[in-house]
């Protein structure tokens, strides 16, 4: 009895994912094909990477609402470089990543300098990034990406989609960073108790800015993967990413109060969102019904997060030493 309860407590996210998969497998024949499962993975790889980025900020007690238009801005930049300028895709990727660093710095700098909740600063930068992306791209949509660039999102290596390999790599990087480097510990510490963190000799401002920068690097990678997969670059490429990422993080156990959660949870959380999206499409649920379901899930996830805090479920999944 006790054992079963513990098991459920520990793996409830996996169980939810399993239940969702089983549910749609019963409901829809095309859903339960290998091809569709791979499709789900590829489709959602950008979301996994971006959610991980957001989760880094959330662990340190912040949030990043500008994710959608960071993706948009990086996306159109790669378009401009590889298509308008006709330069090498490698350069496109490098500039895209560098841009990520800049955007992260902007978010972090204003959050720290103004000392307000990052919800506020990133709400502002969201609009700024959106506007900037429109101006720079003249609101164009880019299509003709070089094949070598599109390979990032469309090619397979050894039977595995490149996008999935990249995602896996990013998951591992984030995992190692959070569990084995002191930068990761510091993110948790700041989210857990900012004053205690400061007195423990942590440079709060520096680490918070660094957190935003690393997060935006992840988001830039996510933008590149998405652009390559869809073969399109435009401002609104991922306008609903902010919603999906936030839901995935909260669902995955990243408390929006900071200081808790782990990467594996975020990955599973994102997959749940991904499977739900795909499944709902497969069973022919209308776009608008899907919105309602997604909103309901976010509310449910937040309620659960609240419940955990209130009832002091004293087992926040915080990395312990190996």
């Amino acid at each position: 009895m006790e054992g079963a309860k513990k098991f459920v407590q520990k793996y409830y996210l996996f169980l939810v994912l399993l239940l969702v998969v089983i549910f749609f497998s019963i409901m829809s024949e095309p859903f339960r094909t290998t091809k569709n499962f791979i499709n789900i993975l590829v489709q959602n790889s950008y979301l996994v990477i971006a959610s991980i980025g957001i989760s880094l900020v959330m662990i340190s007690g912040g949030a990043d609402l500008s994710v959608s238009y960071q993706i948009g801005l990086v996306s159109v930049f790669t378009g401009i470089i590889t298509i308008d300028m006709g330069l090498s895709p490698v350069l496109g990727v490098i500039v895209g990543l560098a841009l990520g660093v800049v955007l992260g710095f902007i978010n972090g700098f204003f959050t720290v300098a103004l000392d307000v909740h990052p919800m506020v600063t990133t709400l502002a930068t969201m609009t700024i990034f959106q506007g900037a992306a429109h101006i720079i791209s003249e609101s164009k949509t880019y299509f003709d990406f070089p094949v070598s660039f599109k390979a990032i999102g469309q090619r397979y290596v050894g039977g595995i989609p490149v996008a999935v390999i990249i995602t896996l790599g990013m998951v591992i990087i984030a995992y190692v960073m959070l569990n084995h480097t002191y930068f990761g510990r510091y993110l948790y510490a700041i989210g857990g108790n900012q004053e205690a963190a400061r007195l423990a000799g942590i440079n709060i401002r520096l680490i918070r800015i660094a957190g935003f920068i690393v997060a935006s690097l992840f988001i830039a990678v996510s933008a590149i993967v998405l652009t390559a997969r869809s073969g399109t670059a435009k401002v609104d490429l991922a306008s609903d990413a902010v919603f999906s990422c936030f839901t995935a993080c909260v669902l995955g156990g990243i408390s929006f109060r900071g200081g808790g959660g782990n990467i594996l949870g975020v990955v599973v959380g994102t997959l749940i969102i991904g499977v739900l999206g795909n499944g709902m499409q497969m069973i022919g649920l209308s776009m608008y019904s899907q919105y309602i379901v997604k909103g309901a899930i976010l509310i449910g996830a937040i309620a659960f997060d609240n419940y955990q805090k209130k009832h002091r479920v004293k087992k926040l999944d915080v990395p312990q030493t190996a």
Partner: protein
Amino acid sequence: MNQDIILSMKNITKTYPGVVAIDNISLDFRRGEIHALIGENGAGKSTLIKCLCGAETPDSGVMELNGVPYTRISPRDSRQHGVEVIYQEINLIDDLSVAENVCLGDEIGKWVSFRKLNAKASRIFERMNVAMDVKKMVRDLSTAQQQLVEIAKALSKDAQLLVLDEPTAPLTTNEVENLFSIVGTLKSHGVTMIYISHRLDEIFRISDRVTVLRDGKFVETLNTAETDRKTLIKLMVGRELSETYPRRSNITDIPVIETRNLCGSVPRNINIHVNKGEIVGLAGLVGAGRTELARAIFGADKITAGELFLDGQPIKIRSPKHAIQKGIGLIPEDRKQQGCFLYFGIDWNISIANMPSISRFGFIKHKRVKQDAIKYRDLLDIRTPSLDQLVVNLSGGNQQKVVLAKTLATNSNVIIFDEPTRGIDVGAKQEIYQLMTRLADEGNAILMISSDMEELLGMSDRLYVLCEGRLAGQLKREEFDQVRVLELASGEE
């Protein structure tokens, strides 16, 4: 004679994963008595309290309040039946005013009238003989002041049974006296009180009976008048314990840290120094600026004027991080807000301030983390089933030990202890005194703040007394005298 029992507990057991916190305890509380509860850190005192007021549900056993038996009760119901608890951990709402916190939960009319609220709160503080601005936000109060608000909050309700879990831990002599006079008044009104404290002299002053717990088990209940300190300690610890303040053997006159005309948020023109091998005490009343001085030296608060010297060289400490790099460590007074990360493991907490030196290229050496945790668990006797236990699950005193360990792990050579033994039991206190002495003998400089006068006089080699932010005097060990210190501290020159 059949005593009138207000509350009786029969065969109460409460377990947590890996610990039996309360092991089959039966206990009666007589109406109108002050019943003290003592025992080592983690003995189960707080847990017993939580069971009786409904904050936790016991696994088994029956309780009887005013003759009505029950196995579980909600915190709300227990309050309605006149049980009020002042918990060990401060549970105030930071963003509300003092008055709002005090009156929380009792409705004065439908609409909150702030005037009435403030007036009611003020009356209570007057009764307590405490000067308090009831409109102030709780977050702007010191720990001691917050504790006074907790006490006022409990007094504002008409309790039949008042439980005080280490109410005096953050308080200095004056406030303790005020508290005791209130306790006396309540007693004369027939209120029953359960009183938990690690300060045994308090137990002897106010309690009628005393119950000793050890490792979750009932040991004995005694009439306070018929026992003595030694007996109680032996019952608590399970062996003889010699209570002494060890002396330093390597005191030099080489100043390690020195302030010259230092001013900060409260401190004004402070000139103090601590020599190599020495333990220097800082005395003063609540609000005298002892903590603020410590924080200024540690770089946690701004130094507005004056200078700081480290090893004879002027130095500007920019931040706590800088201080730690320079070998200055601070053990903060408020463990919940500033000292520990409640929802993280013990080993995690102990290593967090020491990250740079236990990692290579940014990667944590997990082995070192474990080693340090084991070292300090043994050194400070942290009672826990495992080292990755979350700190929130530890008893108050054991949490305090984790806070100590976190700073000690940084191997600083100037260590500022701000209320190091708050909530710590007699045995562990001895360990900490030994440890401080050893640190000093190894050539470190120690600055110590304590509201426990006896401890401060016992441990210090020299003493500075602060009064309202200013240095009121300096006493050498030969000149130590409690009355003199209090005079200086209260500005009676």
